[in-house]
């Protein structure tokens, strides 16, 4: 890391996240003057342009890649059109102990006066919550599921290689051509399409203006700069910002700046979940890299410096502050930009290249919160690349996460994507599979599977609140066999999935109607050709996911019921009494449940077959259900950090888990349930046909001793490759011992740099609240036998 990068890194690391009200003010003033004058897409486009023309710019003294979403690093705008923070929300954000956001009292007062009154009743959240049915609210409040779209726009966007081949001027020409071909006689939607296309065209101009303003700023700084080297750099910055994004990039530097402007445009237009990602950045940058290395206009060090600048830029973009349930289940500064490295080129050949290796080096040296690198391993990936990745894994930052390219492709082929598009696809967010640059793959919310079992055991009543939340499927004493219990569980399951989907579809239609994203639509195929918005079936593929949580907890609980109640001596009434008492006074019973039950994660078919039943039934309940876009829902198996929130909303469970403790995460086994080592875990997980999902998530915590030598790394590589041959989608690692984590809890100031894998992303351990910290400590340590 050179001095410049060291300084930029330090600045980014130390900057305190804060809220900027500038975007909200610009947007509100524009809406007040213009809301009635335009069609909605054009209004959104003009608002975006207004922000691009007027927002404060930032150009730091060491920067080579320029542009910030807020007025300075880690200053985050709000999006009142989606969720308008109340004065109380802002005060909580400012003062809360974990992940606070700074905001001045003056700004809060201005917000109260100018922003809040306008958006009351107009924001998406207000519109949604005013119309949802009572039964949905009951389930939502009981913690059966979450709703993703109530305060952040549907996201999960990754780009393909288009913007490295076409500038905004080229895309404007494509839009103009499409407008030319509109057929008003035979296409009843032509007028709508015209408004969409016109809006897209305006956003292209807006982002060109945004870049040109940076060029002007750089030029104005030249006059105040004495250092001849910096003057030259500022001249280059000005030159680059006049070329991109207007035109297609010609150099490595321009390619990165091109991406960065598009990234900023998308996260300024709306605050989509999982920010934005360049996807396979190494695939896109390698042609520029190779050409310039041959021409002698770029060195490897120079390329690494520019990539470091991009990494730091991503780190500067703190996640927009959330409120309510969403803040509870996702309290992190991380905005989940996942950068894919390696994998396969669209022609099917190995794609791990020099830029992939530089990406790993940059991630290792900077070890920042964001972006989150992932490595993509196919049967063609050379061992050298996997070893290079393993060396970074060993450092214990929790990244890179590791994905199976062949499975990512297979999952996409199963749902009907073309082979070419599937190969260009990858993973974003935590572990979600998508066709980069061509798909809106929308996560709609987490689903609490163990809670469904709890309701089944209580005839649809939530034991925590006493409210009738689910169906009356019969009192628990009436089940004389395991099969009867399980069939009641299925009835409840279908009821809640259908309820969730009904409301999802309504919310989805609201986004299509009220919150088009014309700039995002410009860079995602085939929005231009269809003349339709990203949120309204514009993309080539449109997929909805429900993310199912707690497969470990529910499997182990069902296994306990089958073993001890239906197949053993335990009286159901005694078990129910123990659950109600949270096992107080039932120590022996709890010990029996914990230690004498076959649990998922041990390569033990007695438990794993139950997991397969549940997984298969989740698939049947979700997969193929229609959404509003003429396409369907699929199943996803990740929990991010929601297993902690869902655990809080869940009483004691038959596997011996006490009330309110976290559920199992992703597709991982329950905490401490897997006692046969990592190969057994991998075998258990590979029993599910993971290609039926849009992604699974496996956390493994290794003690540092297990990855000490080069031979240990080779074995880790073999473990990963075997899992992938057996059909695994993803695996990620924490390499840290409990003693270190305990020390970090006691002396947080000494461990500010300690990154740990939380879910599909890493976070600073000291930024996690106590529940999340304990959850990580309780994950099974895979030590030396």
């Amino acid at each position, binding site marked *: 890391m050179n001095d410049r990068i060291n300084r930029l890194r330090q600045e980014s690391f130390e900057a305190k996240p804060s809220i900027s009200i500038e975007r909200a003010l610009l947007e509100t003033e524009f809406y007040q003057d213009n809301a009635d004058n335009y069609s909605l897409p054009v209004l959104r486009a003009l608002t975006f342009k207004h922000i691009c023309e007027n927002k404060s710019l930032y150009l730091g003294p060491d920067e080579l890649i320029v542009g910030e979403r807020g007025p300075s690093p880690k200053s985050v705008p709000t999006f009142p059109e989606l969720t308008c923070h109340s004065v109380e929300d802002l005060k909580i954000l400012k003062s809360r102990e974990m992940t606070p956001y700074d905001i001045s009292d003056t700004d809060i007062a201005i917000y109260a006066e100018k922003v809040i009154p306008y958006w009351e009743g107009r924001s998406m959240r207000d519109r949604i919550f005013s119309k949802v049915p009572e039964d949905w609210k009951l389930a939502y409040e009981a913690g059966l599921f979450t709703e993703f779209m109530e305060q952040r726009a549907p996201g999960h966007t990754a780009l393909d290689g288009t913007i490295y081949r076409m500038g905004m001027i080229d895309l404007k020409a494509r839009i103009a051509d499409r407008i030319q071909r509109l057929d008003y006689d035979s296409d009843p939607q032509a007028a709508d399409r015209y408004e969409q296309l016109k809006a897209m065209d305006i956003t292209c101009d807006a982002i060109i203006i945004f870049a040109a303003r940076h060029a002007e700023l750089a030029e104005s700084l030249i006059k105040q700069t004495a250092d001849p080297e910096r003057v030259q750099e500022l001249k280059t910055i000005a030159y680059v910002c006049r070329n991109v994004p207007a035109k297609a990039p010609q150099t490595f530097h321009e390619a990165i700046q091109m991406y960065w402007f598009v990234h900023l445009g998308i996260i300024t237009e709306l605050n989509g979940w999982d920010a934005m990602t360049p996807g396979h950045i190494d695939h896109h940058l390698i042609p520029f890299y190779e050409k310039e290395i041959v021409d002698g206009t770029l060195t490897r060090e120079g390329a690494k410096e520019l990539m470091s600048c991009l990494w730091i830029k991503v780190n500067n973009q703190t996640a927009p502050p959330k409120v309510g349930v969403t803040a509870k289940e996702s309290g992190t500064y991380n905005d989940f930009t996942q950068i894919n490295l390696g994998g396969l080129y669209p022609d099917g050949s190995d794609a791990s290249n020099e830029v992939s290796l530089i990406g790993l080096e940059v991630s290792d040296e900077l070890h920042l919160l964001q972006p989150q690198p992932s490595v993509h391993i196919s049967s063609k990936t050379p061992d050298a690349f996997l070893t290079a990745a393993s060396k970074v894994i060993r450092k214990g930052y929790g990244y890179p996460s590791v994905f199976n390219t062949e499975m990512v492709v297979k999952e996409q082929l199963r749902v009907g994507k073309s082979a070419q598009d599937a190969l260009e696809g990858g993973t974003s967010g935590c572990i979600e599979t998508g066709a980069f640059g061509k798909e809106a793959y929308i996560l709609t919310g987490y689903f609490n599977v163990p809670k469904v079992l709890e309701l089944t055991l209580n005839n649809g009543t939530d034991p925590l609140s006493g409210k009738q939340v689910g169906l009356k499927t019969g009192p628990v004493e009436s089940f004389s066999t395991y099969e009867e219990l399980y069939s009641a569980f299925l009835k409840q399951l279908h009821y809640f999935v259908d309820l969730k989907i009904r409301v999802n579809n309504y919310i989805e239609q609201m986004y299509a109607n009220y919150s088009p994203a014309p700039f995002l639509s410009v860079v995602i195929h085939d929005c231009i050709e269809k003349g339709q918005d990203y949120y309204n079936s514009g993309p080539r593929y449109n997929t909805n996911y429900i993310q199912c949580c707690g497969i470990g907890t529910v499997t182990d609980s069902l296994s306990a019921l089958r073993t001890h109640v239906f197949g053993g001596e335990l009286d159901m009434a005694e078990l129910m009494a123990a659950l109600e008492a949270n096992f107080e006074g039932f120590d022996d019973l709890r010990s029996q449940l914990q230690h004498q039950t076959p649990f998922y994660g041990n390569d033990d078919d007695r438990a794993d077959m139950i997991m397969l039943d549940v997984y298969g039934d989740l698939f049947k309940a979700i997969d193929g259900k229609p959404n509003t876009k003429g396409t369907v829902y699929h199943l996803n198996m990740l929990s991010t950090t929601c297993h902690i929130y869902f655990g809080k909303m869940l009483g004691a469970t038959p596997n011996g888990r006490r009330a309110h403790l976290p559920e199992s995460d992703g597709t991982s086994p329950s905490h401490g349930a897997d006692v046969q080592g990592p190969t057994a875990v991998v075998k258990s997980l590979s029993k599910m046909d993971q290609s039926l999902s849009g992604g699974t998530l496996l956390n493994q915590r290794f003690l540092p001793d297990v990855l000490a030598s080069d*031979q240990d790394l*080779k*074995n880790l590589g073999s473990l990963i490759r*075997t899992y992938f041959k057996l059909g695994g989608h993803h695996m990620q690692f924490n390499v840290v011992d409990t003693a270190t984590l305990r020390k970090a809890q006691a002396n947080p100031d000494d461990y500010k740099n300690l990154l740990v894998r939380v879910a599909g992303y890493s976070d600073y351990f000291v930024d996690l609240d106590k529940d999340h910290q304990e959850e990580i400590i309780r994950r099974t340590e895979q030590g030396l036998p």
Partner: protein
Amino acid sequence: MTSITGNIFNIKRYAIHDGPNIRTTVFFKGCSLSCWWCHNPEGKSPEVRFKSNPRQTFESSDEKLVPLGGWTSTVSEIMGEIRKDLPFFQESGGGVTFSGGDPLYQPEFLQALLKACGQENIHRSVDTSAHAPAEIIRSVAGETELWLLDLKHMDNTLHLKHTGLENGLILQNIKLLDALGAEIRIRIPLIPGVNADEQNLTASAKFICDLERKHPIDILPYHDTAASKYRTLGLDYRQVQASGPESLNPEQLIELMGSYGLSAQIGG
């Protein structure tokens, strides 16, 4: 053959330091030696607490106690466990390691398992003190791809003092296996105050050097991790303390071995 039974105290998967690559290690009960620092004290006694695998029957409610009790197992049960990780052996080039205790303490059971693994082309490694009659060594050698042989002390009196047995048979067997052309890794547990002094280690280097073929050496540094096992078993735990001549550290031992043209590494 599958009806043959034997006593074991654990089967560990993803064993990565008991021979090359990803392995499953089967720990046999019983050992002729009684090294007082042994980090697997549960392997010393040939007796078992359980009639069958308590993990299957959930006879024991505490996972930590399972290995301390041990159980009577069969060839077919162990083969079933070994087969579970075949894909990992194939991918990594690993296999099975028989350890203990000392696997040679139950030679018939060991040979039955070695044969069964051989029939399925699973790479076999035997981790042993090599204290056994020569004919057993010869016969096991025909069914073993890799030997992990402990070299504890070159001085016969001190060997007797610290392990309860003389070292003559052990050294003879190492020479025998060397002459038979067996693949061998010599393992030296580095115990301060017992065998870590320069005099013993120089003698060890000379002994290894004098063998017909050059064998790699694994240095196993002493870890103070077995104390809780001793407590649970109700055995006296003696803390290792450096006394007498100065102990060499692992790096110095690597250098010493290097000066004899031998290649040594830390860990195994």
